[in-house]
């Protein structure tokens, strides 16, 4: 069985497409997370493959289904955006020997195929559908929702895993070389870090609306507060450190106006969810969280980097798609869990959504009010990447757990958790899910 990448037909990129045809008929039930680590320590049992198996098995157990009932698996084969396996370095034999390998020795160590997972989970005896949803969990869960809705799978695992190695993120590969291919050089020669495009948009945003970098401090504090209440997260597990407004304002710049805390910390972690039909979900161990819609942004900038105008146009368009397919309006959102890695584009996402009536240019003022989980206007109750480390999936896990009323110390108390939205990554180019405690 070879695994295809999801075809364009699995996604909902267009406005005007009406209600999602499977609205309320697909549900997320089980959640499983691996432990987090800052970097791989080289042991077989902490490899990206191993932590993936942990997350998958926990999601199955959490949902309370028999492994043999699982008939689908959706995942992202890529497990990093910037931690490169050194060229020519052999995979340690004790790692290779610990698992059933595929023909690629880096499978399970620096990448992940569906075949590797199935070879190492013999209990999954009935998986007939496998597909890649590339980029992040935001993408993979759209594919899983569509697959279950379309009947390609009935009980489907969705997986996203991240590895991280010794050495500084993004500094290997082409960045360490003396020359670049011409096509890459047109944007890469100037040495801009990953957050640069977002920092530029933020700079323009501050000029246009008269805002300042310091106004982000309450958002960062709130995110870390929430993240420290997320027992699955990196900061809660390893470094339970609050960030104060003073810490934030004093942090070193990465690409001014983006500083250290506007960026996220690369970690190792894996998460898996169990998706199934609303009907099948009724008999499982956790309360179903129904998918009202999935939508995506296929926006592309005219030139090197999106302008603020392009960002605002696209986030507004994406919001229309999100609401239209779900049959809801901004007023229906109990809370939002849009992506934050980088922190400086979170406001673009929520301004596009018109969260709590917000208009363009108003989010930073909104951040100065009560945005906590106990107030009426929760912002990013998951804590996101800022609060939990770099995974791009905390916001999805949090939506599921909040609507299941089992988010623990993180449970929102100022609003009744009924409908939520999450997704990302980028304002131009992301995938979004609308979650609901009830199917209609």
């Amino acid at each position, binding site marked *: 069985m070879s695994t295809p990448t999801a075809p364009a037909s699995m996604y909902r990129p267009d406005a005007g497409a009406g209600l999602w045809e499977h609205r309320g008929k697909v549900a997320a039930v089980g959640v499983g997370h691996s432990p987090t680590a800052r970097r791989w320590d080289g042991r077989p049992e902490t490899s990206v493959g191993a932590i993936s198996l942990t997350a998958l098995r926990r999601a199955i157990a959490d949902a309370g289904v028999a492994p043999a009932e699982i008939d689908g698996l959706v995942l992202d084969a890529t497990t990093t955006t910037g931690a490169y396996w050194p060229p020519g370095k052999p995979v340690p034999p004790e790692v290779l020997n610990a698992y059933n390998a595929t023909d690629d020795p880096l499978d399970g160590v620096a990448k992940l195929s569906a075949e590797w997972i199935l070879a190492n989970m013999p209990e999954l005896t009935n998986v007939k559908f496998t597909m890649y949803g590339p980029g992040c969990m935001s993408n993979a869960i759209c594919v899983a929702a569509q697959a279950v809705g379309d009947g390609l799978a009935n009980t489907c695992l969705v997986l996203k895993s991240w590895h991280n190695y010794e050495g500084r993120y993004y500094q290997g590969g082409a960045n360490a070389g003396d020359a670049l291919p011409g096509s890459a*050089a047109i944007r890469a020669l*100037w040495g801009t870090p990953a957050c640069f495009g977002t920092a530029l948009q933020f700079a323009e945003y501050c*000029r246009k609306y008269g805002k300042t970098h310091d106004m982000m401090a309450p958002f960062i504090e709130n995110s870390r507060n929430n993240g420290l209440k997320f027992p699955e997260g990196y900061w809660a597990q390893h470094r339970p450190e609050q960030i104060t407004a003073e810490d934030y304002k004093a942090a070193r710049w990465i690409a001014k106006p983006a500083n250290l805390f506007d960026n996220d910390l690369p970690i190792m972690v894996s998460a898996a969810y169990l998706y199934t039909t609303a009907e099948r979900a009724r008999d499982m161990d956790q309360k179903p969280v129904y998918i009202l819609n999935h939508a995506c942004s296929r926006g592309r900038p005219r*030139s090197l980097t999106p302008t603020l105008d392009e960002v605002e146009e696209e986030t507004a368009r994406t919001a229309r798609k999100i609401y239209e397919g779900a049959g809801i309006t901004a007023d229906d959102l109990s809370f939002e869990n849009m992506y934050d890695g980088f922190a400086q584009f979170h406001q673009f996402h929520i301004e596009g959504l018109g969260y709590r009536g917000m208009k363009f240019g108003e989010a930073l003022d909104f951040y100065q009010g009560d945005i906590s989980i106990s107030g009426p206007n929760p912002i990013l109750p998951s804590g996101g990447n800022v609060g939990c480390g770099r995974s791009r999936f905390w916001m999805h896990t949090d939506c599921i757990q909040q609507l299941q009323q089992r988010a623990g110390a993180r449970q929102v108390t100022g609003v009744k958790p009924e409908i939520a939205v999450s997704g990302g990554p980028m304002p131009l180019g992301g995938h979004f899910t609308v979650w609901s405690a009830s199917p209609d």
Partner: protein
Amino acid sequence: MAKQGVVPDDLTRPFWEAANQDRLVIQCCTACNRLQHPPAAHCHGCGSDEVEWKEMSGRGTIYNYGVVHDCPIRLLQDDQPFNVAVIMLDEDPGIQMYSHLPGTPVDEVPVHAAVEVVFEETANGQKVPEWRVVAGDR
């Protein structure tokens, strides 16, 4: 600043060859007369694959900038912190180019100021378009 060298590929060769002659050329769709940068095999405006290279005046404006303090590229790390500005071309402000703004002090970038193109050598001798702030009104 010591930029990495460039190995032109098929898609971008005319851009780099022109830079070695101190000329700035940008891809232009002959079907809809739209400029595009970065170059692509077909026009993102109309889909046509009839694209040619058009010489620009080499004049532009600073649209935006950031200051890089933590750069992923080894060769540039000795020069941190440094400016990276986004230039909009006079011919079409939708077309952007990056610049280290040689001659402009770090974090003293005059947003909206006029700039003109210069050509700098990279590590392997390939020239690359760079931009300098134009003194006074032009």
